């Protein structure tokens, strides 16, 4: 199997409205990595994720998941990916257990395997007691965890998390990160976008910073943090190192 979980070459996307979302992005994520894709709102992070997962059509460029081209070998490439989108996207009238078991079905996993696996995921993510409640009755944090459980039901080797902790309280965020760390320990590659930069700083091995559809910096976390100018004068508010670098690279 390819040593890279994700290989993106010269990826471009222009929406019908004329908005240029990506202007030639190239990126590789090594297998087993915990990778942060950071950028301000509208930088192109969600567009990249949309293209990789098959929810957005690219204008040009190539994307490979574990060596499988997403256009030529779509079905194979998709079997590796689990995705937690930015927006809640399950049927609110369905029950958590059915949502996850149905998702397993779309990957060809029979119910006799899917049900116990889904129950275990619900236990791991603290949702087991809510498994037969309507999804609309879950709290915001529970909905996020349900989306993580759904993304993991087919045991993907590449998990994509698009701002999974947006609107989630501190305690819950910490428990989610702990859970995700156990996944990387098992060899799952994680691509994360988040606005909580201090968490990305602690969790991720590699980082790419995107601004206006172009990668402005990429490398190991140490390499990115090394861009920090310790002698620079503060304007009164002192943020974390990654945040300072981020602001320096993405400001107008």
């Amino acid at each position: 199997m390819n040593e890279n979980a994700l290989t993106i070459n010269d990826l471009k996307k222009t929406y019908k409205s004329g908005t240029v979302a990506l202007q030639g992005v190239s990126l590789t994520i090594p297998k087993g990595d915990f990778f942060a894709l950071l950028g301000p709102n509208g930088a192109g992070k969600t567009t990249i994720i949309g293209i990789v997962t098959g929810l957005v059509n690219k204008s040009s460029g190539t994307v490979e998941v574990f060596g499988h081209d997403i256009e030529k070998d779509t079905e194979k490439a998709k079997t590796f990916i689990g995705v937690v989108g930015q927006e809640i996207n399950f049927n609110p009238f369905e029950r958590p257990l059915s949502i996850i078991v149905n998702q397993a079905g779309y990957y060809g996993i029979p119910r006799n395997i899917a049900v116990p696996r889904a129950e275990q995921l619900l236990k791991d993510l603290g949702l087991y007691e809510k498994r037969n409640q309507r999804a609309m009755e879950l709290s915001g944090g529970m909905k996020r965890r349900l989306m993580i459980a759904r993304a993991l039901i087919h045991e993907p080797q590449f998990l994509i998390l698009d701002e999974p902790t947006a609107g989630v309280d501190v305690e819950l965020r910490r428990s989610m990160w702990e859970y995700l760390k156990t996944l990387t320990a098992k060899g799952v590659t994680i691509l994360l976008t988040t606005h909580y930069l201090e968490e990305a700083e602690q969790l991720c091995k590699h980082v790419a910073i995107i601004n206006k559809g172009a990668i402005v910096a990429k490398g190991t976390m140490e390499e990115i943090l090394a861009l920090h100018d310790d002698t620079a004068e503060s304007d009164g508010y002192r943020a974390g190192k990654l945040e300072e670098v981020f602001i320096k690279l993405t400001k107008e």
Partner: protein
Amino acid sequence: MPIEKIWISFYTILRKDIVRVFRIWPQTFLPSVVTSVLYFLVFGTIIGTRLGDFNGVSYIHFIIPGLVMLAVVTNAFTNTASTFFQAKFFSRNIDELLVSPTPPWVIIAGYVAGGMVRGILVGILVLLVSVFFAFPPILHPFIIFLFLILSSMIFALGGLVNGIYAKSFDGITIIPTFVLTPLIYLGGVFYSVASLPPLFKEFTLINPIFYLVNGFRYGFLGFSDVSVGLSIGVLLALTVILIAINWYLIKTGLGLKQ
């Protein structure tokens, strides 16, 4: 995707839809049954008895196949159009399928099968209700079965095109109201095309519902305004065209992806 996985994926889409259809049965099964009772009562029993025979059968016998077909096609269409549109527009849970390795043709097959199941079940219910008014003869059961399958499939496919392409809630109500309903009422459910002036007769011949109703009526009563072979040919051609349109829309993501 191996064939057993494809089957599981298809079964999952279909099962989910059937569970939904039965869960909300007052919305999915009852309306057509109630409407049909009113049609049987007003057009069949009250007005129909004054109209005399049509090709040797009473008016109520003449309209039963058309009314069953009306229930089948509207339910098959509405089911796929509304289910797909809701998944695409309101909860956006269509993403669950789009990110999965399920091939486009399996998505089409799953949704269409769901629409067919609802259409056929409602059609059977309407036929059962008709027994209380007049028991229709069944001369060619195979033809009835064939037209039931073809009609539910064509309109489930049509509903899917509508559901994929609709950009607002109006988009899935406009087609049934302004296209489907006139086609149904002008498709020979309540009259024989032989009784129409020549110009209207020509218009009727380009209405697909005309072929459905007549083929289906032939299965019950043994006569039709048009040859059954031609009806089957027209319907098969429509099926192929609609499958191709659906496949193209889902494969390219037109109306689904940005």
